[in-house]
């Protein structure tokens, strides 16, 4: 069977999501935005820190969503891009004394290059084979970071401690709150850019490839270019998230970026709804808070409880948060009519 035939017979790996359905309406967006801006003023620093992590993982899930939901390619290697971004920021901040804000675009660009280069050979693979190739990347990364050759910069197994930035211009807010708003601005920026990307020519090309590669190429879409581009963009955003994560956690070490992280991000995407960008935040909330809830239910069996909760989600709402949102809008519409 030729590769082309395989693609045809395989059917669609990812369900087609019309691009309108990828975002929220204006009203809802505004409510969410206001909530994200106001909440930190009312809660403790610890909660603010958790919300910062929520946004950071949200970005990483969003990046995966562009790749899988947008262009139909799988990746279990997002933790590797996340690690590269985190280490880039940490090394530039600690060894080159660079301003934290400047390290983020650099982390993004390096990861974009990394992802683009990785996307080249990955072109020959699709579906589960691609997932396996990226899986290899994720398993290799922690060990690469431990290599003696890089140890001078990476700190080897001991990792690197990162200094947390103070609020600039003498603003009267805590480090946590400043970092939260800083992250929020970047997240909103990247979110808007992603929405625009998917609505643009390139985004339509991504989706055409996702829905049917052969048809897309027959219509003149440069399949190779757009597939690697999707990889690059996804890796770049993940890299920025990794850099922010390093600043928020104040520490990078190989043990923080194992395959577990890649799987968590994948999980976040599925729970949030594949191809539905706002779902990224919901997915991120799931991977941050549900393990804590599971631990609260039973310490010894936290893994099993987590499994059961995950199973329930997949069983009851297979399309994740998107499905919940659709049902909610329908209910809301009915109520309005009455």
């Amino acid at each position: 069977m030729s590769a082309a035939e395989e693609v045809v017979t395989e059917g669609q790996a990812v369900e087609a999501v019309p691009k309108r359905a990828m975002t929220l309406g204006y009203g809802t967006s505004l409510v969410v935005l206001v909530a994200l801006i106001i909440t930190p003023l009312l809660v403790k620093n610890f909660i603010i820190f958790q919300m910062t992590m929520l946004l950071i993982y949200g970005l990483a899930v969003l990046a995966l969503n562009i790749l899988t939901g947008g262009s139909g390619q799988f990746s279990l290697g997002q933790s590797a891009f996340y690690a590269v971004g985190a280490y880039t920021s940490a090394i530039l901040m600690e060894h080159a004394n660079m301003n934290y804000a400047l390290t983020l675009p650099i982390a993004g660009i390096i990861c974009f290059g990394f992802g683009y280069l990785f996307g080249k050979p990955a072109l020959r693979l699709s579906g589960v084979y691609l997932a396996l190739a990226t899986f290899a990347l994720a398993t290799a990364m922690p060990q690469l970071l431990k290599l003696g050759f890089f140890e001078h910069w990476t700190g080897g197994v001991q990792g690197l401690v990162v200094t947390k930035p103070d609020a600039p211009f003498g603003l009267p807010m805590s480090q946590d709150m400043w970092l939260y708003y800083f992250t929020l601005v970047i997240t909103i920026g990247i979110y808007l850019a992603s929405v625009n990307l998917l609505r643009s020519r390139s985004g339509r090309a991504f989706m055409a490839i996702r829905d049917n590669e052969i048809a897309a190429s027959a219509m003149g879409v440069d399949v190779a270019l757009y597939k690697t581009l999707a990889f690059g963009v996804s890796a770049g955003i993940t890299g920025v998230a990794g850099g922010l994560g390093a600043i928020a956690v104040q520490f990078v070490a190989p043990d923080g970026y194992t395959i577990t992280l890649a799987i968590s991000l994948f999980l976040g995407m599925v729970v949030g709804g594949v191809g539905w960008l706002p779902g990224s935040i919901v997915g991120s909330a799931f991977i941050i808070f549900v393990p804590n809830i599971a631990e609260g239910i039973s310490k010894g069996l936290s893994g099993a409880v987590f499994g059961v909760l995950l199973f329930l989600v997949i069983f009851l709402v297979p399309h994740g948060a998107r499905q919940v949102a659709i049902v909610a809008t329908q209910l809301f519409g009915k109520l309005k009519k009455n």
Partner: protein
Amino acid sequence: MPVFRLRLGALSAALALLAASSTTSIAQKKYDTGATDSEIKIGNIMPYSGPASAYGVIGKTEEAYFRKINAEGGINGRKINFVSYDDAYSPPKTVEQARKLVESDEVLLIFNSLGTPPNTAIQKYMNQKKVPQLFVATGATKWNDPKDFPWTMGWQPNYQSETIIYAKYILKNKPDAKIAVLYQNDDYGKDYLKGFKDGLGAKAASMIVIEDSYEVSEPTIDSHIVRLKATGADVFMNITTPKFAAQAIKKNAELGWKPLHFLNNVSGSIGSVIKPAGFDNAQDIISSQYFKDPTDAQWKSDKAMIAWNEFLDKYYPEANRADASVMYAYIVSQGLVQVLKACGDNLTRENIMKQAASLKDFEPGGLLPGVKVNTSATDFAPLSQLQLIRFKGETWERFGEILSGDVGG
């Protein structure tokens, strides 16, 4: 009205007395967040899930021990509320859990959090917040640094001081040794290796004929042993974790390689290492210890061991008694109780660090005879003594004096 005056005088005297007594009692009782008249809230972070979940048993034993302390009336009338969270050995998660403990649960201190990377991740935060990060469960050398990190304190003898002791022994008894070193390629292995080289000093380069490392993910280390043997070394420094240590001992015997074998005490357990490797194969191996191995028959009727068994029977019956971590947790929990007792009614974070830094010749049950806990304002390494042991028959034989290999971070 003399009578009235007298009464007034008595009343005012009584009042003054009352005021005085109440002010003294107020002055005596001082609390920081996490401590009250009835409760002391202690935080803890353990890898209950993930790659290092075997160590989760430490947290469970500690929880059981504090249940025992509470059942016996608590510490100076206060019950211990032990809040233990899972970080899956992932540093970002450790940071989240530490912040949850300090800012949301408002614990008085974080006790015995496990692992070098997780503790490194929270060290700066804990010191900024001035919350004690007490008796961390890692053997890295850097925790003994009271000048830069006055709120962080180690517990067990650190890895470097252990290999320094072996190096000193080699220099003294076998100065012309040809040494083969095998170590695990991570922070633990490298820390041990550094201590060993520091201990050999200038002679390290000429004495060590081969340094070989393995990854934890390797299924077997047989090929490494073959390579080590081929160099003709007559001393083997074995820096491996239990599973690999057992493999190394077995393979040595198979190959008929009989060097002077030093085994790091991480893998000194008879139950989990020596027995699976075979008693015959393990004769004359030298290691070191600071607490009693519960699987060693010589402690069967020891008083501390009986107390340990009674505690487990009552509060943690499902514990695996061959697991050295259970003993480890039992000893370190006694350390915390001792510190809290010494604090009396002054349960401020500052006083906790002060009392933790003034332990003098404290001997919790379970330590080897002669090993004592000592700290001072400049010494944040509570346990730094070890005794050399040699495997004979079916048990470890102690020999020589109690040795100390203090090194600062």
